[in-house]
């Protein structure tokens, strides 16, 4: 042993220094590390958010029912406020696109957006014209078009109306109540399935019973939830309304009717930041354990930059979008998001996470 190590150690040291410099020596995280990360993210990030969604949507369902019983300005305000709370909760968990929220396309049922062909408007108007009492049950909504059962349909009903529309036991009021009840049921079922099954499946990701074959495979779903929304927010919530090279399109903004387009983006970014670094074991801490502290710092500061930039944009976005200053600031945010997307994607390679090759860019 000695006779070998003596002449060789300077060489080995040299090689290892070289490898460290080029970042090749960082081994991929262990199954144990992935398991810890998954545990933190499920318990501290995902479940509390679905809990919040369940709570706020239950309040929304209750106040919508009360509005039909006693339509007055105060109660309509209350329903609108509960709608905002529910949308807050949804925007804070919109990035989680795996697990029970995918079952029966609950994600699309909660929010079908962007709606390029005005499917929601068409389907909703049809219901409002026909006023068929049979449509006023959540049972009907389970089978109904994706357009009429979620938060955007409810937004139209609540924010495109006056109090008189909700009076006299109107169909419109009862439809709002039914959609709110459906959203509450969906939220409740999502949380229930996480608690009953999916949480366990992730905790035991390397066992026979699990949906996953390994802890890393479960982490891939978590990492997709971190990386993929960055580009989606940029493309759909910022660039599409900016309509590069042409006139801005305010009605392409998400939630423009309830004047909360910017707030949605702020909540999305805050959630992604929490997913990145807000839990006991986090992607941030994992990167540091892998010797990628400078890159982790970079990502953190990008999140902070974007949060600061968002604060400088004037609201409501739907009215300020045509202003040159707003366009300029949104472009800066778009650039920062692109940078964040690049940095996060690069670190996925460091972490040996393949986000999807055929599924993301197939042919």
């Amino acid at each position: 042993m000695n006779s070998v190590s003596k002449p060789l150690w300077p060489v080995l040291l040299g090689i290892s220094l070289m490898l460290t410099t080029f970042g090749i020596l960082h081994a991929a995280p262990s199954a144990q590390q992935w398991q810890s990360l998954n545990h933190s993210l499920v318990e501290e990030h995902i479940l509390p958010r679905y809990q919040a969604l369940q709570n706020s949507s239950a309040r929304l369902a209750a106040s919508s029912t009360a509005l039909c019983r006693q339509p007055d300005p105060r109660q309509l305000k209350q329903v609108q406020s509960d709608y905002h709370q529910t949308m807050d909760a949804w925007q804070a968990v919109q990035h989680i696109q795996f697990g029970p929220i995918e079952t029966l396309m609950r994600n699309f049922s909660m929010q079908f957006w962007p709606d390029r062909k005005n499917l929601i408007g068409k389907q909703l108007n049809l219901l409002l014209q026909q006023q068929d009492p049979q449509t006023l049950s959540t049972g009907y909504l389970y089978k109904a078009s994706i357009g009429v059962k979620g938060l955007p349909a409810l937004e139209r009903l609540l924010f495109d109306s006056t109090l008189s529309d909700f009076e006299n036991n109107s169909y419109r009021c009862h439809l709002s109540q039914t959609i709110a009840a459906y959203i509450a049921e969906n939220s409740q079922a999502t949380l229930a399935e996480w608690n009953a099954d999916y949480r366990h499946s992730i905790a035991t990701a390397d066992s026979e019973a699990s949906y996953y074959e390994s802890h890393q495979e479960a982490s891939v779903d978590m990492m997709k939830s971190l990386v993929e929304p960055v580009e989606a927010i940029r493309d759909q919530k910022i660039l599409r309304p900016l309509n590069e090279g042409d006139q801005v399109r305010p009605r392409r903004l998400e939630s423009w009717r309830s004047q909360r387009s910017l707030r949605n983006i702020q909540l999305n970014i805050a959630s992604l930041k929490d997913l990145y670094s807000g839990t006991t074991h986090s992607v941030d801490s994992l990167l540091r354990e892998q010797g990628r502290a400078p890159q982790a710092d970079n990502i953190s500061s990008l999140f902070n930059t974007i949060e600061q930039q968002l604060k400088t944009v004037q609201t409501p976005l739907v009215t300020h979008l045509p202003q040159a200053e707003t366009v300029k600031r949104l472009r800066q945010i778009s650039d920062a998001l692109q940078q964040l997307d690049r940095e996060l994607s690069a670190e996925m390679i460091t972490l040996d996470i393949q986000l999807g090759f055929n599924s993301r860019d197939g042919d």
Partner: protein
Amino acid sequence: MEINRRRFCQLLGSAVLLPRLTLAASAGDNSTKPMFAAAAKGRDGQYHLYLISQQSQVLLDHILPGRAHHTEPHPQRPLLACIARRPGSFIDIVDYQAQRLVKRIIAGSGRHFFGHGIFSHDGRWLITTENEISSGQGRIVIRSLEDNYSIIADYPSYGIGPHELIQQPDSEVLTVANGGILTHPDHGREKLNLETMQPSLMRLNLHTGERLEQQVLPAELHQLSIRHIDTNRQGTTVIALQYQGDAGQNLPLVAVHRSGQAIQLLSAPEPVNRAMKGYCGSARFDDSGRFAAVSAPRGDLISFWDLQDNHFISSVRSPDGCGLTATHNTAEFIISAGTGRCIRHNILSGETTRMPLTLKTAWDNHLTSVSL
């Protein structure tokens, strides 16, 4: 040094200097018997064509000049044709026994490939789908192996965006999937005509280019792109579809075609069909020709179908799984994934086994059995 030389050669695009072929497996009967070939993206960031043995060893590792799509084995000789994905312009013809690049075909000027090509049953022709960029019209181009892959015929595909093509069994008839989606290299991979796209399944005479049969989907389903097809020994074609319309629609994503009949659409049970996320990536028949597999990489699942009576049988989970090929066992397939995993699944026994690959790579869309 090695990296610099390789990069330089790639820029040069030289067929003489470029090949870096290594015989990775040592001698030994089973370990050198080929099983499948596929293009992949390596951890080195480069694109590779791999040939894997029955013992899951790497028999061939050929560096490609860019991302490829489908790999086609020659029916009689130890050749693989690896075709650039759209809008690429190379086809590498590799002799895997001699471990050498035999020929790098470059698409003609004003043309690019769509990622698919086949050898004719008699092994004399290489037939590819191509884009005539100026007109946006699809072309079927035939190159002669005897004449150093020179072009001997160039027909219209009678559609836009022809993708996969297949030669019908025991006949001189080609079946072509005209995906219907217009792209232009100036706009990368952007889809330019989603509102008006009109995909079709076309049958052509291999020798004359004559149009023999054309099938389209009902007008309201014109956004279902007909992209990937396979034909069994009875001449039945299975079709994997991709929906280009709004998410949330739950349309059929698999179809079957028999000569002279309209395309018949097939849906999986609702939860499975929805889970396929409007996107199928590959379709293959099994060895018997009765069963078919259709991959849904966005839904992380593979669906299996009995095409004797056109019904859905089952599905298996395969994260980012897309590549499919039949083994010599009835109802059995190999499935490759972008995660690097390859599994073998038998529909009848329900058994799934993971192949013991030591190679870690992102397998690209298609997988091909090699059995010479």
